[in-house]
């Protein structure tokens, strides 16, 4: 009973638009987790912007009452970076899937980690392109066989937490959609932490990956406390099987933020363009 009196219930952050996700989709829980986290943080919808790319999970801004931008495939992070730089008072949450974030937007993921702008990036990872009928994504296991990838891709999967750590993300965590309250706490912690916060959320696709229903039996809380030492975090990732939940890393890097005051007087700049 030690929770803050937020004044707003999670339902206040849900719009009237009914999600079109498949019944049973993990993304419903992530939506619930986001709204609970915002209520826990004591924020108001107009203080939050949710930016997404393309994909099933990227529909999420429409399902909230926050400001939203459903943008270009793989380009949620650049749009969110610009927004946060221009409107630093907003809490900016970026949301999307594994295809949008690690493949089409993979390069932006690296540089968002490196730049360390104060964003919270939530990736709903289901190891498949659900919206386009089940093609393998960067996080698909090499042996996953389907009609669209008979015998599997045979290609090693992408390891998002490893890449995030190596690229400089200041907060790294993993959640599971089957634990929306746990996810809500992770998201709230990620939002509170300064700099670029990355939360990978395992979110089963019940339509194209019904095997992922078994994830609920595989996930477990990581048996270690978060660390602020990247070398220690890296060693932990060496033995990570992808199902350890919780905060892996909380760095101390100062977030990037441009000076709010002009560094050069306008008249001085004008001289540069004098003919």
């Amino acid at each position, binding site marked *: 009973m030690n929770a803050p009196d937020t004044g707003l219930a999670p339902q206040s952050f849900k719009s009237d638009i009914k999600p079109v996700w498949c019944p049973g989709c993990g993304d419903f829980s992530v939506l*619930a987790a986001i709204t609970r986290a915002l209520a826990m943080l004591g924020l108001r919808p107009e203080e939050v912007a949710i930016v997404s790319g393309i994909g099933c999970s990227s529909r999420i801004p429409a399902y909230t009452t926050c400001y939203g931008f459903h943008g270009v495939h793989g380009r949620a992070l650049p749009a969110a970076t610009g927004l946060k730089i221009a409107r630093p008072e907003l809490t900016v949450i970026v949301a999307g899937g594994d295809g949008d974030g690690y493949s089409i937007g993979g390069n932006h993921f690296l540089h968002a980690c490196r730049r360390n702008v104060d964003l919270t990036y939530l990736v709903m990872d289901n190891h498949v392109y659900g919206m386009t009928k089940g093609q393998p994504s960067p996080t698909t296991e090499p042996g996953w066989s389907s009609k669209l990838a008979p015998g599997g891709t045979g290609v090693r999967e992408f390891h998002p937490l490893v890449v995030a750590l190596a690229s400089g993300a200041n907060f790294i965590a993993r959640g599971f959609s089957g634990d929306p309250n746990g996810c809500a706490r992770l998201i709230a912690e990620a939002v509170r932490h300064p700099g670029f916060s990355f939360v990978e959320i395992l979110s089963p696709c019940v339509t194209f990956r019904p095997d992922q229903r078994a994830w609920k039996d595989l996930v477990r809380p990581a048996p270690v406390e978060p660390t602020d030492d990247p070398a220690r975090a890296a060693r932990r990732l060496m033995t990570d099987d992808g199902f350890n939940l919780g905060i892996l890393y909380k760095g101390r890097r100062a977030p990037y933020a441009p000076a709010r005051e002009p560094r050069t007087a306008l008249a001085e700049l004008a001289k540069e363009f004098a003919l």
Partner: protein
Amino acid sequence: MTRRNRKAKPAARAPERPAAKRAARAPTRRRPASKASEEFMARAYAMEIDAAERYGEFADQMEVHNNPEVAKLFRQLAEIEGRHAKQILEEMNWPQMPPPVYALEWRTPEPPETAPVTELHYRMRPWHALAIALRNEERAERFFAGVARSPKTPREVRKLAAEMAEEEREHQRLIREWMARLPQPAPDWSRDPDPPALGD
């Protein structure tokens, strides 16, 4: 502040009527509650409101996926749980929701009476929806029974929890009766002649 028959799950033919009758007889005495009792009732309220919201979300999903029969059933369940939550507010003389409800921690991933989102299927039948409701009631009973059994629980809360556990058992009985009157789903109930998945 007795809790007996605070709520009842509906029967199949006239689902709302028995619940409404019982609700009408719900206790209206308002005794000063101890802090422990208030905390316990806030937790009970959280269970009800969370279950109501989840059933409402399930109803939305079924509407979106053109399964009106199951949508209607989930909507009924949402209304029932919402009424129970309201009853707790009235009984406790709380003008509105107790603030910490959404930040309470649980040993389970969600409050015990809340169904996991992965339990739905777009072709599910009403029988499946009731099976979900039954599992919710069973989890709720285990939760309350555990509180009632725990030696750490204050005596007045133990009594409340035991009553709640008994209610949940009664709800299970009603749901089982309801399920028995519904047709069992065919073995191939989930088969879709035009499936969304190209995969195996």
